[in-house]
């Protein structure tokens, strides 16, 4: 279970995360949504101890991430597919991670097989496509067989086959009683694999509800998302003629 309580993170005068509170329960897939710059990645980095919150706290099964004795075996983390030294092979990258916890070489081979990277495990990561990088990131998250998984945009760059695989993977992990927190911009995908959805905008909580609750009014999850975040979008594109692109999802 991941608990985020009144979490605030300021970068100078900017409040990237602003009093955010939510819980990701065990045995469920919690989708984490929000427009670009809403504070999703910052929140995830704070949960795994890469950043310190300005105030508030984030715990995993009651413990701060930095206090975990065996972090990889408690929490699997994939924050960015480009987290590998380009000159290192996929196998060596995973092996170095495994060695910090005394995880065996055979478990490294196991996660390579689970993510379908057998044929490229000996290749340097700098030659990987985005999708292969994602698979390597997921392999790293699974390495310690953790009870909690935190995945930032895991399907980004994956082929349809890979998207289907991730969907099945996170459903299975939750079915085994594990906690999965997963961010994505693909509404259709989240509607299929998430039990609950936490939506944030400008660092604040906009909604924390189950997928059926959000779609109760008859619209899709995307409609509900666009409606909720319409005031919280910081970066909005314009059409070629200069007018703001209308949000069709809300009126449809």
């Amino acid at each position, binding site marked *: 279970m991941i608990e985020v309580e009144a979490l605030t993170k300021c970068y100078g005068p900017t409040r990237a995360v602003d009093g955010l509170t939510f819980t990701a329960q065990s045995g469920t897939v919690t989708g984490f949504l929000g427009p670009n710059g809403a504070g999703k990645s910052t929140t995830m*980095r704070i949960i795994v101890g890469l*950043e310190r919150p300005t105030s508030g706290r984030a715990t995993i099964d009651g413990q701060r991430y930095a206090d975990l*004795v065996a972090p990889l075996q408690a929490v699997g983390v994939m924050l960015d597919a480009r*987290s590998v030294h380009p000159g290192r092979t996929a196998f060596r990258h995973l*092996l170095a991670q495994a060695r910090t916890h005394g995880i065996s070489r055979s478990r490294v081979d*196991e996660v390579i097989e689970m993510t*379908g990277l057998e044929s490229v495990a000996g290749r340097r990561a700098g030659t990987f496509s985005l999708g292969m990088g994602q698979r390597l990131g997921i392999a790293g998250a699974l390495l310690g067989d953790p009870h909690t998984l935190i995945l930032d945009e895991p399907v980004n760059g994956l082929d349809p086959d890979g998207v289907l695989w991730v969907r099945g993977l996170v459903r299975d992990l939750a079915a*085994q009683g594990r906690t999965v927190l997963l961010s994505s911009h693909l509404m259709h995908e989240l509607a299929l694999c998430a039990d609950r959805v936490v939506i944030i905008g400008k660092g604040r909580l906009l909604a924390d509800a189950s997928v059926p609750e959000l779609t109760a009014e008859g619209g899709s999850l995307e409609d509900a998302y666009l409606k909720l975040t319409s005031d919280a979008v910081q970066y909005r594109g314009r059409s070629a003629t200069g007018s703001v692109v209308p949000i069709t999802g809300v009126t449809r």
Partner: protein
Amino acid sequence: MNRATSTPQHRLESTRPGSPSPTTAPARPGVTFTRVLAAEWTKLLSLRSTLWTAVGTILAAASLAYALGLFVRPGDDQSGASLIVSGYLLAQLGALVLGVQVGTGEYGAGTFRATFTAVPRRLPVLVAQVVVTIVAAFGTAAVALLASYLVTIGARSDHGLIVTITDSETARILAGFAVYLVGIALVGLGIGALLRRPSAALVAGVLMVIVIDHLLAVNPGKIADTVRALLPGSGARLLIDDAGLAVLDATSLGPQLGAWGGTAVLGGWVLALLLAGGYRLRRHDLT
């Protein structure tokens, strides 16, 4: 790729909670310093750049020593040890690069996310990097010293140079080669940990170790000589024979450091840079 989707249920069987497979259950779970050290060692050896830097450093040291050896004539009254270690002028660059590579390797592509989510206490990683840098730099220096010996004293017997390892001055100069290169590699590691960008760290390192010293040498005076004595390159005094040191101290208006005083200065730099790098690592956000 297709295989990955076939039967995820089956594939996850071994990862079910309650029935951990024997391969995933180590005797004592968790992060220990020994394990972090093993991981850092794996990381260092898994990069081709490490090998190339070591080979380049050895070749540079031996080539320079060989070239300078060509000018030695019988009766020159030059010490053999000084000739063997003369390649340090180029080799120190290699040592610096090695340290910078270890210090900045985490930050070029965001490897630090994988590293510091595995070791959230962070500092053990830096300490392990210090250990692997010392081992790698010392190993490189030892091979460079042997290669330099072979292409100078070993290759020619006509110049009358002799090396007596039991002589304390000779031993100090030869050991000094390794001590100095290890020190400069640690300076590179410290700057790398502090600046996190390879190019910035390398430029800062070359300025500190080589360029500033040469600029100040053009304008000798009390201030310039004092500053020169307090630069990390001062550690190279360990490589200068007693006669050379006497001349150096006699002409300098700055502090009289002798042979080991420079080593203390270099050690001070290493300590200060690593403490600063450690402070940044421990106290600041990793984004």
